């Protein structure tokens, strides 16, 4: 039943995104709003539970770190920032409900979230319709910001991420034959796989087989057996960490010893907990690496460690950046109305955020570099940095 809902919903979304090649897909019909009290209330939607729970938790910690910093410095225009955080269990339908609740009941001035593109795609039309600026920290599917002019992101998009991994596979790893294993219930995974294939075949590589699974599956042996039969030199698995960990483990059990490759959906300490040794020699692209020695990154890591006693992953850094960019826009906006904040967000130029210098382009996406991370004995090792 849920699968059916999802199918209908994504079909609707597809139609929506096809229709709106010119101009926003969803028109603003709501009145927007402005800050009236002495605090700025911002909504956050994240997957605090479910199969992608570390995404929501990391992002939330990153956001709260930024909020503490902002409030300690006196807030924005003399007003303190308050975050109302709701859990969507990693489900698009819950994300949509949470967004509606934040806008209609809590009267938030802006929304932060989600990590998963499928969830952001469910939230964006609601934010757009109500004229509430929405900033997603790390949804990389291009369709998200195409929903309308109130939807922004502070991360790169999948055409870039896919091409980075394809070039890395072809040029650096010298691979010619790659298999794909994608999550068909996940907009992020489908998009990233398509963009990888596009660049990889253009470079002259060959996709030997394109297999699929669904989020929540635990058995991948049949897919992996088919993949094994085609003898690929690597498998591109643009999924989320829970499934990828299990896939890595089962691939080893079937005697598949080629590297796995993926995107920022792998970024969780749970990945290596589940996958263990089976992931050694695999690669994924990410927003940042804690091994990056730049001053901004190292200061962020030190602050984060002091607050939460662990090394932040990429999603924590993106959560922090999303909040910083939003705060910067609110500071620059002449008044604290949704219209002015939206305009200021769109005007963001060369803002020095944690994960790099961020400029919001005309499509409301951030242009920034990606890093490639190698997994060795359960550790994430910085491999190389690739600029757009």
């Amino acid at each position, binding site marked *: 039943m849920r*699968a059916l809902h999802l199918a209908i919903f994504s079909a609707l979304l597809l139609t929506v995104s096809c229709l709106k090649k010119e101009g926003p897909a969803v028109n603003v019909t709501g009145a927007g709003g402005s800050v009236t009290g002495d605090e700025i209330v911002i909504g956050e939607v994240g997957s605090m539970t479910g199969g992608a*729970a570390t995404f929501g938790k990391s992002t939330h910690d990153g956001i709260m770190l930024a909020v503490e910093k902002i409030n300690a410095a006196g807030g924005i225009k003399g007003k303190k920032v308050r975050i109302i955080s709701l859990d969507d269990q990693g489900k698009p339908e819950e994300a949509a409900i949470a967004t509606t609740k934040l806008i209609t009941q809590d009267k938030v001035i802006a929304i932060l979230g989600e990590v998963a593109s499928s969830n952001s795609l469910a939230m964006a039309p609601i934010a757009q319709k109500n004229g509430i600026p929405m900033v997603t920290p790390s949804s990389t599917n291009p369709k998200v910001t195409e929903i309308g002019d109130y939807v922004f992101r502070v991360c790169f998009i999948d055409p870039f991420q896919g091409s980075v991994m394809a070039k890395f596979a072809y040029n650096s790893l010298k691979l010619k034959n790659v298999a794909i294993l994608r999550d068909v219930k996940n907009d992020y995974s489908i998009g990233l796989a398509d963009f990888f294939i596009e660049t990889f075949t253009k470079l002259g590589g060959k996709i030997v087989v394109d297999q699929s699974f669904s989020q929540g599956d635990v058995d991948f042996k049949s897919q992996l057996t088919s993949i094994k*039969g085609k003898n690929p030199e690597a498998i591109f698995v643009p999924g989320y960490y829970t499934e990828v960990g299990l896939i890595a483990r089962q691939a080893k*059990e079937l005697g598949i010893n080629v590297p796995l490759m993926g995107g920022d959906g792998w970024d969780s300490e749970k990945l290596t907990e589940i996958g263990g040794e089976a992931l050694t020699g695999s690669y994924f692209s990410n927003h940042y690496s804690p091994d990056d020695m730049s001053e901004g990154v190292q200061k962020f890591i030190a602050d984060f460690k002091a607050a939460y006693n662990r090394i932040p992953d990429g999603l924590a850094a993106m959560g922090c950046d999303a909040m910083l960019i939003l705060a910067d826009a609110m500071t620059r906006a002449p008044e604290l109305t949704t219209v002015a904040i939206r305009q200021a967000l769109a005007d963001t130029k060369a803002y020095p955020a944690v994960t790099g210098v961020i400029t919001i382009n005309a499509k409301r996406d951030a242009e920034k570099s990606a890093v490639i991370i190698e997994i060795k004995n359960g550790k994430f090792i910085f491999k190389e940095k690739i600029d757009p």
Partner: protein
Amino acid sequence: MTEFIQHLVNGLGLGSMYALIALGYTMVFGILQLINFAHSDVYMLGAFFGYYVSKFFNLSLHPGYGSLSAALICSMVGCAIVGFFIERFAYRPLRKSPRINVLITAVGVSLFLEFGGQLLFGADPKYFAPLLEAGEPIFIGGVQLNRIQLIVLGVSLALMLALQFIIFKTKIGRAMRAVSYSHTNAALMGIPVDFVISFTFMLGSALAGAAGILVALTYPKIDPLMGMMFGLKAFVAAVVGGIGNVTGAVIGALIMGVAESMVIGYLASTYRDALAFAILIIILLFRPAGILGKNVKEKV
């Protein structure tokens, strides 16, 4: 060809896990004519019992048969106790009610365990560190097998035989069969009906507990909703094999596993769940009692 045989082996591995759960469904139905929907959630609890026991005693630091048996026994005992309480407090008060009431209660117990589990254990998946290393894969003519697959298949066949033995060769088994014909007449013959029914539930729940541990051994990700789809498939397997029939449950489960494996291997993974229910519909159309079930005409 090697690929085909590998798909077959994968399918038998998957099927043997469905079989472990299907055995419990089919036994309780066979004795009580009750579809115990909570069974798949007892299986989930089994996995969590194992998880906490292994965490508490650090069993995963010393993987091996000893640790595995310890977790298995703890989880089977834990589940048997849960099974006893479910029967005592949810089903026994409804013993005289129409069957539909008990069925709805079963769904209620199932939801209670699933969402109570989310409250208690948290909704995020847990990683169940393996209690037994898969070890070096065993190659037989290019087809790959590992120790865990063999153990799971072996255990489900052994449990099937043990169940057959208990039901057909022991005194309590005879009592169970007598109760399945008529509660009243069994009671008149001096059979303690309540005890027999409690025993049936505890036995079924212990099987689910064993299944929880063995499935977690293969798929080390456990969460409170893990029983939903897996349990549903196992239930379908029990119906396909002929619900109430122990051998049928294992055969049905192996058919389901192999069919799923083939569909994913040669068609698309998205048909996986649809296939399970397509098989169910076809079986219900052409052999309503299942592959090994006896067609009993109900008198009106």
